[in-house]
């Protein structure tokens, strides 16, 4: 907790410490990452086919961060998310059908159609509606941690944010306040190298977000965000510290989004070679290869089929679900409806 706390680094590809989970658990992590990947790929096509309103910010490539971090959380722990929340939502346990229906703008969606892609969330599983203002969650999360501290629970809050948010004032104010109040928070940075189209190195002279932890007297750690077991292990340490009252941790996950920033992004700002290099480190492929050393490929294929069937079911559920009533747009601004004018 000293102000010159060193930033520890787990180098990509370095020998991993013994992982304390069994094969079944690893297989489940594989299933969850595959669910996120296939969810993203399928909703992209549905969007192109004109079935989904709005826009999409997708997280293919970043599955290990969402799955690895949320794997060490309890249902009663909370997360805040970003404009790119699909993976976080599925990893924290938002119902797949309700998440899909929300993208369809249906009444059965997890936010009743009022949130949409950028505000996926469900309080019953510990996820605020995702906060689509860059850095927006970095201050709100301090209140979650403060409430847990004041109520003397042992809950932990995780704030997912991107490299872009680390240049927002909110990042600095949130981290400093969490530090001086010793709040049970893990700030989980998904550094995917680009804020929309802008390379992080153009907007920060320090290459590692985690090094900013030292400025606030908290522990920073860098982990390979393309390795779900490494993320899980680092997040487990950070969450355990936060839960024990040792204050916040800044965990930087080096990752990469395989898709563009949003639906219409043709990725002209980065090279196809760079993309290919990162795809070599695809977190799902890596875990699958590891599992295939001990498991029959058929088990993994069956898992993939199970994921596909769940997505088929969720898409069908969303398609069949009712639209919200138009007048529902006028409820829930307040606890009780106050004058908002009347519909024509």
């Amino acid at each position, binding site marked *: 907790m000293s102000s010159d706390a060193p930033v520890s680094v787990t180098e990509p590809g370095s020998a991993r410490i013994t992982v304390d989970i069994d094969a079944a658990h690893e297989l489940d992590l594989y299933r969850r990452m595959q669910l996120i990947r296939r969810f993203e790929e399928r909703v992209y096509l549905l969007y192109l086919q004109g079935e989904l309103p709005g826009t999409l910010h997708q997280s293919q490539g970043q599955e290990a961060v969402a799955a690895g971090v949320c794997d060490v959380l309890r249902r009663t722990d*909370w997360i805040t998310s970003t404009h790119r929340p699909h993976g976080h939502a599925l990893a924290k346990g938002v119902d797949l059908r309700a998440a899909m229906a929300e993208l369809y703008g249906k009444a059965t969606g*997890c*936010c*009743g*159609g*009022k*949130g949409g892609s950028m*505000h996926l*969330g*469900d*309080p*019953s599983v510990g996820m*605020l*509606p995702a*906060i689509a*203002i860059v850095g*927006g969650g*970095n*201050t*709100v*999360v*301090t*209140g*979650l*941690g*403060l*409430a*847990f501290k*004041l*109520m003397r629970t042992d809950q932990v*809050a995780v704030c997912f944010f991107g490299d872009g948010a680390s240049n927002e*004032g*909110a990042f600095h*104010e*949130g981290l*400093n*306040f969490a530090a*001086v*109040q010793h709040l049970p928070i893990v700030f989980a940075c998904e550094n995917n190298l680009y804020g929309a189209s802008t390379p992080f190195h153009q907007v920060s002279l320090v290459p590692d977000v985690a090094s900013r932890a030292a400025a606030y007297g908290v522990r920073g750690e860098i982990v390979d965000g393309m390795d779900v077991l490494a993320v899980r292990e680092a997040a487990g340490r950070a969450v355990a510290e936060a839960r024990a009252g040792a204050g916040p941790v800044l965990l930087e996950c080096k990752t990469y989004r395989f898709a563009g920033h949003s639906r219409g992004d043709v990725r002209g700002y980065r090279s196809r070679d760079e993309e290919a290099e990162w795809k070599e480190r695809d977190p799902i492929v890596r875990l699958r290869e590891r599992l295939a050393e001990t498991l029959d490929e058929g088990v993994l294929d069956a898992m993939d089929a199970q994921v596909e069937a769940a997505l088929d079911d969720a898409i069908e559920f969303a398609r069949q679900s009712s639209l919200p009533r138009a007048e529902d747009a006028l*409820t*829930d*601004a*307040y*606890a009780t409806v*106050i*004058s*908002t004018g009347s519909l024509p």
Partner: protein
Amino acid sequence: MTVGAPPAIGERRLTIAEALREAIAEEMRHDEKVFLIGEDIGVDGGFGGAFGVYLGLTEEFGHDRIIDTPISEKALAGAAVGAALMGMRPIADLQYADFLFECMDELVNQAAKMRYMSNGKLSVPMVLRCPVGTANRGAQHGQCPESYFVHVPGLKVVCVSDAYHAKGLLKSAVRDDDPVLFFEHKLLYGSKGREQAGGMDLTAHVPKEEYCFPIGKAVVKREGTSVTVVATHMSLYRSLAAADELARDGIDCEVIDPLTLLPFDEETIFASVRKTGRLVIAHEDTLTGGWGAELAARVAEECLFSLEAPIRRVASYDVPLPVAPIMEQTVVPSVARIKEAIRRCCEG
């Protein structure tokens, strides 16, 4: 701290600062989820908040429930929003309403929208106390920015002008399940108000028994038949002074304190306008886009054929606030300007 005449028999006269302190202490005793968060509010040997409202509270409630933040309004507001989302009932303090602009995202994008985005599953039961008003502090410590927030669905906006309603409304705000911005005028807290408000007694009777005053309800401060005057904060007291002077000329003003700007108690205003046929609105917020414009529009929509003259607004001129008293008092609505507007309205 009490200013004005000594209390009459049976009266318990308090300043707004004292009434607010009482409301906070009572609510903290009732509900352990209520806590205070702000800058310079509980520091040992400190100020008890920028205007002394919290003096003595740390002794009773301790530092666990009176949380001093860094000078970090985004963190302060974000912490209040987040804690409220988890079921706590924070009372946050911003020292000066001018600092609201430091935490607009937390208020406008987060606090105001979380209930809606979650389809009604979440609540943000927080109060943010925001001192407003000119007091020779210049352009960045004297604004009345309440109208910005009247434009934000999901927020509630309260403006208090006397100790009785300040206490009752703050207690209601703490118990409310939605975020409430609570605007208090710096000149009305205590003794300074008396001098700059022309020697008026700013204390009010506050019963010893507990009470709440509902959010969304206006009060008629002075009944009359010639013209309706709607005003908040210092402009309310200046309107009352103008009404007293105009009474000598046979102009009988009905003066209304809306107390809550969002949701607005339209019915009380409409009923008064239907009776008087004339409306003057006075506020220290600037003119263009101020809440008076919204009220004028609603009255025009609903009561046009009751009106016998154009609606008149008296507001701060559309300039930043200067410090030099002669300029400052030119910018904000004075008794003379309010009188002139009422006269023109009654001649129309």
